[in-house]
């Protein structure tokens, strides 16, 4: 277990380092001089030289990377070109909002999708199963930004049930929750389908296992057999899938933030790209990568925690 943890954390660090390198090189591949971009076309040569010296742009590229690497590892991702605020702080301020959106989207999708998949698997080929199948495929097929736009139009603009934009008054939890409903709906919808399909497939497989028959033979309640026996095994591959799919979840959250004008990493990246504020974009992408890597590690650890066979083979 200890060995496994070390290995996984080491691997995560390598992934983040690769992301760092890629981002760094990307910046150097972009045509044009960073100082000129930062200071604008009307900057004087002296200002550019001063800026280049301050940002170590006159050093050899390897040294630049080394400085960048050590700064990044010590939490310093540079400063906002305009406001001079720390990028780390800006991104970390925006991050919770995005994570809550993604988590709530996933949560409601799981609360609906997992039981749908279970019931479909218990009664395969029933009308319920067929209907769930159709709905699942439909929700998977619709891109999340379309869901965002349409739900915004229908529920906020036409029916006026829910707010159109923003994240609600700071400090007012009820208002924030009220503002979260539509974006979370849009982010989670396709996951209802994903989870229902995934759970159904693995439940069908598990329900044929001998130990399920054995549980019935011991006279256990059908509900116990389905939810405490079969689901406990069938959910394992689903958890891994959620970890891998979390990247997709983040990107739908970014779309939702832009469409609903919510604060968050997505909105931040969008605004900063528009303003050509590259240090912030870079920092935001890096931190998002780190979050993704962490979530994947977490999913694998949850599987190991739930499945003693995996736990012992680590």
């Amino acid at each position: 277990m200890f060995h496994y943890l070390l290995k996984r954390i080491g691997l995560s660090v390598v992934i983040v380092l690769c992301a760092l390198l890629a981002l760094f090189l990307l910046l150097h591949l972009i045509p044009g001089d960073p100082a000129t971009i930062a200071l604008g076309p009307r900057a004087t040569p002296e200002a550019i030289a001063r800026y280049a010296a301050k940002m170590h742009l006159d050093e050899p590229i390897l040294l630049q990377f080394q400085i960048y690497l050590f700064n990044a590892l010590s939490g310093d991702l540079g400063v906002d070109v305009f406001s001079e605020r720390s990028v780390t702080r800006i991104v970390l301020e925006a991050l919770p909002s995005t994570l809550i959106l993604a988590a709530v989207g996933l949560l409601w999708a799981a609360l609906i999708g997992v039981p749908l998949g279970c019931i479909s698997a218990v009664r395969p080929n029933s009308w319920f199963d067929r209907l769930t199948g159709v709905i699942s495929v439909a929700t998977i097929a619709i891109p999340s930004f379309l869901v965002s736009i349409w739900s915004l139009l229908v529920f906020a603009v036409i029916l006026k049930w829910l707010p159109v934009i923003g994240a609600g008054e700071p400090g007012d939890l009820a208002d924030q929750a009220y503002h979260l409903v539509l974006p979370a709906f849009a982010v989670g919808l396709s996951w209802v389908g994903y989870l229902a399909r995934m759970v159904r497939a693995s439940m069908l497989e598990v329900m044929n296992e001998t130990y399920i028959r054995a549980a019935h033979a011991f006279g256990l309640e059908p509900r116990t057999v389905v939810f405490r026996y079969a689901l406990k095994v069938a959910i394992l591959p689903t958890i891994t899938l959620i970890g891998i799919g979390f990247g997709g979840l983040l990107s739908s959250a970014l779309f939702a933030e832009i469409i609903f004008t919510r604060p968050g990493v997505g909105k931040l990246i969008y605004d900063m790209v528009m303003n050509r504020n590259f240090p912030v974009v870079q920092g935001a992408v890096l931190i998002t990568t780190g979050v993704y890597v962490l979530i994947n590690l977490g999913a694998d650890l949850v599987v190991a925690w739930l499945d003693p066979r995996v736990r012992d083979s680590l």
Partner: protein
Amino acid sequence: MTPLVQIRNLDVIFDTDRGPVRALRDVSFDVPRGKIVGVVGESGSGKSTVIWSIARLLSANGRIVGGKILFDGRNLCDLGEAALRDFRGRQASIVFQDPMTSQIPVKSYRQQIIDILYRNREQSRSQKIGHALAMMRRVGIPDSEQRIDQFPHQFSGGMRQRMGIAMALLMKPQLLMADEPTTALDVTMEAQIIHLLRSLQAEMHTTIILVSHNLGLVAELCDEVVVMYAGEVVERGPIGAVYARPAHPYTQALINSDPARVTERRRYLPTIPGDLPDVRFKQAGCIFAGRCPKAFDRCRHEEPAAHVLEEGHDARCHLLDPRQVASSSVTAASRQEGWVPVDPGSNVAATEPLVRVRDLRVSFPGRGGLASLLPGAQPAKIDVLVDVNLDLRAGETLGLVGESGSGKTTLGRCILGLIPASSGSITLRGRELTRLSEREFRPLRENMAMMFQDPVGSLSPRQSVRSLIVEPLDVHRPKGFDRDAVALKLADMVNLPRELLSRYPHQLSGGQARRVGVARALALEPDLIIADEPTAGLDVSIQGEVLNLMRDLQIAHNLTYLIISHNLPVVRHISGRLAIMYLGRIVEQGDCEAIFRRPAHPYTEALINGIPQPDPEHRRTLASIEGEVPSVAFRPRGCEFHARCRYAQARCREEPPEETVLSDGRTIRCHFPLTG
């Protein structure tokens, strides 16, 4: 006293894509209280379907269409879901065939036990656990307080099956149904489980239905036996009467074809030619008529009635009809009882051996890296084979025997170069194999072939039989052969019907798939065939066909066989010499007959005594060997068998025995050989 279970005219149908299969037809028998009733039959006989019908847990496409199952006078077919749930587990419980797959891997035994005892509302949690611990101790699980918190994968196969029995008995059911309870276990474990079931039955007066294909097991354990064939009961009666005076030709054939009864090496094993009838369609006449050596006209038109032979013993056969004129003198019955023309391997002179293995050692890396530095970790390398010496002479058959984990399969694969040797030498006709590169080894593999354990699983499902058979030629001699001619020749050689050549593996029966495996092994005309469990998973009647075929091919092509098996009767039947492995060492090696007559190593003795004999008059009173095989990662000191050895002395615990040669030429690793 009425019997606990009365099955009357039970009909069960499974709906399949190819139409309804009539899996059980007119099945009737009684299970008397406090008795053990064995249900015997080959695959497709419907013996397990009987159990699942009683538990009312037929798979979704199965249904009971007629008859009744009375349990304590109550018809189980009329019960609703709630009443059935109450019946299951509380009044009737099941021990499953494979404890590996029948216990949920993600729940500890403590959780599973609490789940099973959910109906005992009056019991507190600690009372439930106390009850479970007592049951675990009763079935022989040491350290039950600690082990109850473990998960199924942390138990060995034998312990897991003990746990399966404990869980089935937790609610003290009146009826225990055991579906092939020892099939997934080693011989020594099987003997222990049989012994346990018998003592539990005597103690708790539980009524037991035991489903098995193993006649020896049934003879050891049961009071009464029901013989089934293709979904019908053909004979039933007290165990002694049925085994001593089998009345139905199928029962007779089944008992005769058990290799444990045919110990002479040179005799062909009796078989039951033909295939199971297609039970999708109603058969006219006797269900066994198509394969019965004694069948006559009436058998093909008229269904036989049950004829009572003596109290409680009846069989369905026209021959037993007192009005039946003895028109059918037994003509065909002796056809198979032939003798092998020459004893293969008897003419092997003291020539240079075909394969010579010396001081072979195979190690696998243990958990490496940082984990190996932690206390209690496994050693950095695990020895799977240790100091193995073996000679295979051209034309002989060597049986390699041992329990699972003994390294017998590893040795076979190592000779084929599929697993690298860590040290020692393997020579083929004097040529050293262990240091060859894959490119140098490849042409040598033409001389060696492997028959894999799982006959169907070792065939690619997407290739036709024809391309499977010629595949070895495609690999080694890709040019210049006529595929169709070769395929036909090989199919004929292994008696595989030619029309099967265009089929795919899943369309074959187990015996046919095994023949394809033999044909593949023969394709390159090798000298050596290594057969890993050649009869595993085959029915008794098919087993004989495969062994006879292998015998004939050996004589025709002067093949050398290395037979890897845990099935001692099979090995005894086919082998000239025997090597017994324990924890990666060969503990005894020598002439097969001599070893069976008088084993020298205590382990060999225990294995031989562990074979259940198909003779209810000679039941063993003791499990032949206690304890379990230790892990190769943590080898015991001294003689590695000492903890399980009945004869172990102080010296055995300290000093590992060297390989010594006895006067009759056997080699043995034991300080105190039983023959000495």
